[in-house]
Each structure stands twice: as C-alpha cells, then as structure tokens.
C-alpha cells in the first residue's frame, strides 16, 4: 500500500537478459507489466494518500458538517491513547504467540510426515484440513462448539465448567489461530525436509552420527531458511488477524484481545472518529514499513537461495 518501503538488495537473481534497445523497445517490454502496476497503484496507493489527508481532519461522522483541519492533533490524541498502545502490545502477543506455537507444532508434524508409514497421504490430508476451513467459520466453531462452558467439547469431555474464553481470552484466540496455521507451517517445513539431500544424511549415519545429532547439526541448519520463511509469511498474514478477534472475544474482556485491526475498526465504525482512525492507520502503516523493510531483506535472500537451487 505504499512505495516507501526501502528497497532490499538486488541480488535476488541476475536478470535474464539485460535490457537493451531504445525507448520503443523498453516500452514494449513494460507493456505487459503496466496494467497490473497501474491497478495496484490506483487501488492501494490512492486510499493511502486519502488516509493521510483524513488524518489531519477533525471529523466525527456522528457530528455532521464539521471537518476542521487540525494538523497533527489526531496523532497526538492517538499516540497518547492507552488503547492504541494496548492494541499494539496485543498485536505483538497474538501474532508472536500464534506464529511461534504453530511453528513448533508444524515442525513436529513435518518431522512425523517426513517418515514413511501406512496411510501417509491420508494423514497429510487430515493435517492440512484445518487450514482450509473458512477462518470465520473456524472461529465460530471454536467459540461455540469447543470453548463454550455449558455445551463445549472441552468441558464436555474433561468435565468442569471453565469459561475458557473469559478466563483465557488471549489463549483462546491464539489456540484457534494455531490450529488453523499449523498446517501452513507444516507444509513449508515439510518441503524443507524433503529438499534435504538423503545421501549426506546417509553418509552421516554411516559415520556413526546419532539421530538427534543429525537433527541438531544437519537438519536444523538446513531448515533455518524455511523456518524464517514460515515465520515471516505467517507474521504477514497473522498480524492482520481480525476474524478470530471479531467473533471469539470482540476484543475483550476489556481490551485484553483488542489488536490494531480491531481497534481501528472500532474507532471507525463504532465511534465514527474518522480523523483519529486515519491517524492510527497511518501509524500502523509506518510501523509496517519499518518491519517490512527488514522483512523484505529476509525475503529477498530466501527467494535467492530457493531460485538458485
């Protein structure tokens, strides 16, 4: 949504052929790219510029007729607001929690699936299924059919009357996300495991290396780039988590699970503070640019390795 992201190093891969020829030749080359580029710029950059403009207005949609230019006042309001800081912290906790746990589980499952056993394709199919359930359906399913204190599956099987969602709101949201995203991590890590050279592993085994030594000193270093890629892509997707928060906890209790997307949604469509919501949006964009600049470096190195294989 912005062009400001700093450019990562350009070593991904040498171009197929250096561009030569005059302006006409260059435009012929550019032609196939232009529709997509123009479309992306129009749909993603113009709203952002508009957000920038809105963020300087005092505009509450419930009080019609008053859009006053107030400069940076919205930013001051938003940055001194406890709620936004809480939302930022919650975003980090929810994203990191979901990514880390799904990565650990995904690694375990990938190691299991890397072995051969009866029915392996079926187990793989079973394991990717949670990822394919519509996220909002998954969130509602966990909320009502699993976490519910009266007739939920957990209390139904293990007894007790714990209200899981109000007792452990973050845990409930993270559990649902981990359930959905573990298959994603598993698929990436499994691809990593299967790209490992079997001869080298066999040679190490012949030389008397123990299984965990092979894992610690050969498999894990080999998997590192896949772990990074999984963590990165998982974070890109999960930082925008909205469905689970919206339907499981509504951000509550209090602000316990209000993340940035949900907080901005509330500011926009519950409080109708358009100016403040825009300022918060701009701040999120700036934070994302910082993270993305770092992320793009990692991505470019990961994609380079992969494409040179």
């Amino acid at each position, binding site marked *: *949504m912005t062009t400001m992201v700093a*450019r990562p190093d350009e070593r991904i891969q040498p*171009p197929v*052929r250096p*561009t030569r020829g005059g302006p006409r030749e260059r435009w012929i080359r550019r032609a*196939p790219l232009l529709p*997509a*580029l123009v*479309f992306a710029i129009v*749909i*993603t950059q113009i*709203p*952002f510029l*508009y957000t920038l403009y*809105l963020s300087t207005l005092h505009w509450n949609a419930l009080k019609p007729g008053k859009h006053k230019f107030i400069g940076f006042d919205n930013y001051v309001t938003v940055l001194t607001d406890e709620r936004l800081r809480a939302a930022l912290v919650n975003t980090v906790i929810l994203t990191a929690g979901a990514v880390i746990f799904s990565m650990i589980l995904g690694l375990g499952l990938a190691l*299991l699936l890397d072995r051969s*056993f009866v029915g392996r394709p079926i*187990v793989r*199919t*079973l394991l*990717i*299924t*949670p990822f*394919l*359930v*519509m*996220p*909002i*359906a998954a969130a509602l*399913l966990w909320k*009502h*059919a*699993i976490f519910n204190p*009266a*007739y939920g*599956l957990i209390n139904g099987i293990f007894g007790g009357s714990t209200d899981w969602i109000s007792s452990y709101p973050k845990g409930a949201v993270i559990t649902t996300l981990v*359930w959905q995203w573990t*298959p*994603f991590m598993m*698929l990436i890590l*499994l*691809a990593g495991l299967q790209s490992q050279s079997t001869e080298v592993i066999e040679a190490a085994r012949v030389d008397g290396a123990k299984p965990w030594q092979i894992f610690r000193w050969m498999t894990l270093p080999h998997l590192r780039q*896949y772990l990074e890629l999984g963590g990165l892509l998982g974070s*890109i997707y999960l930082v925008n988590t909205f469905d689970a928060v*919206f339907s499981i906890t509504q951000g509550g209790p209090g602000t316990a699970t209000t993340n*940035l*997307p949900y907080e*901005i*949604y509330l500011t*926009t*469509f519950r409080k109708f503070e358009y100016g403040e919501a*825009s300022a918060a*949006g701009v701040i*999120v964009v700036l934070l*994302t640019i910082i993270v993305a600049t770092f*992320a*793009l470096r990692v991505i470019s190195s990961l*994609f380079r390795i*992969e*494409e040179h294989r």
Partner: protein
Amino acid sequence: MNKRIGNTVWGTVAWIAGIVFVFPVIWMVLTSFKQEEAAASNPPAWVFTPTLHQYEQVFDRNITPFLLNSLMASVFSTLLVVSLATPAAYALSLRPVAKWTDALFFFISTKMMPAVAALLPVYLLAKHLGMLDNIWTMVILYTAMNLPLAVWMMRSFLLEVPREVLEAGEVDGASLPTSIRKIIMPIVSPGLAATALICFIFAWNEFFLAVNLTATNAGTAPIFLVGFISSEGLFLARLCAAATLVSLPVLIAGWVAQNKLVRGLSMGAVK
C-alpha cells in the same frame, strides 16, 4: 527390523496427531447432522439419529444469495487477477523490464500493508461513488488483495520455462503468440491453475472487507455466517451446518490441489 518398529510407532503417532487436528472439523460436520437438543447436550452426544433438518433451516434462511455473491466475487476477482498478474509476471521474469526488482518488491509491499489502514478511505470512496454493498467493489478489492501473491507465484512458474527452448524458438522465427502457445503455456498451465485456486480460496474466505463494505445485497458467505448467530436460543447445530456448507468449496479445492498449496502460500518460494 528396528527401523520398521520405529516407523510403525511414529506412524501411529502421526495418525493420532492427524485425527486430533482434524477432530474439530469432524465434530462440526457431526454436529450439523444433529437436532439442537443433541448438539447442546453435556456430556456430548456421540450417538444420535442424523437429520438434514439443520441444512433445510440454513437454506430456509436464504443462504443461496450469499453463496452466489461469494461465488461471483471469488470467480471474477480470480479471473481478473490472473489476467493482470500473468503478463506482469512475464515482464518480471522471461523478458524483464529494467527495474524489475523494484516492481516485484512494490507488489509484495502492498501485500504487507494492513488492510485496516485502507478501510476508511475505501469505505468513503465506495460510499461517494454509490458502490457500497456492491459485489463489483468486492471483485476489485479482492483482485488488489491477491495481485501480489499471483504475480510472485506466476513469476516462479514462468522462471521454470527453459530459456534455451524459448531462445531456440525465437531463432526459428516463432512469433510471441506462437511461443506463448507452444512453449510457455504447456509448462505454465499447472502453475496457472494453482495460482487461480489460491486466489479463489483467499477471496472466498475473506471477511474483514466484506463485513465492513457489504450488507444485504452483496453480502458474502462469511457475512451470512455472522449475521445468523445473533439469533437467540439453540443454534449450535444450525451454525455447524452453515459453517460446513460455506467451508465445503475450499475444503474440496484444497484437498484436490494439496500438492500445489505450499508453493502458492509461500508465493512461489518453496517448491
């Protein structure tokens, strides 16, 4: 011998893990065939007389227009995204433009941006243009949402076209349409299908934009699901029936294409 026992043990563990992971889905499907009383019983009812009553209820409450809206938004945005992304990916791989890395990273940077930052301006613009609650608004937004993914993915597939073959064709005087038809398409078409499928899945499942920009006219399947739990009383079985129904297209598509899934989700980075 030892190894075989090990494989059996770990295979069993894998089976158990698989069943544990899929269990909530199985439970959802089972519950959808229950009567509400059985669905809300504690301890859970494992034995019950299956009924299609809940599915009838879901259709009585008019899920069909929501499903059709989802279908429209997903299919049209997928067609649009593929027809924009494929030529772009070509210009970023086989015959790259001068600043191809910049363009490539511009696309992915739009994917990293939180949709929430664009929500208000998009909402206001759509309102101004009278395009709120309009399925074509969703088509355009889903196209923008999936474009970076599709460009990166298609690029990774196009890079698999052997350059020598392409150049040999050029030397032989093959025109661009001919080499697309004869050389590029046969190699790339499985990738094209995979790209389309991933875009379809993301569009079908999208909730955040839909809940804020659509209502009764253009509401998609996720919106139906949310709107329908606000009713009081026992609703768990009906909810499960609706959830099963709306998840079914993606479940089937994902199972069929599971070998391509990882490549799509990693934007072509992992083969």
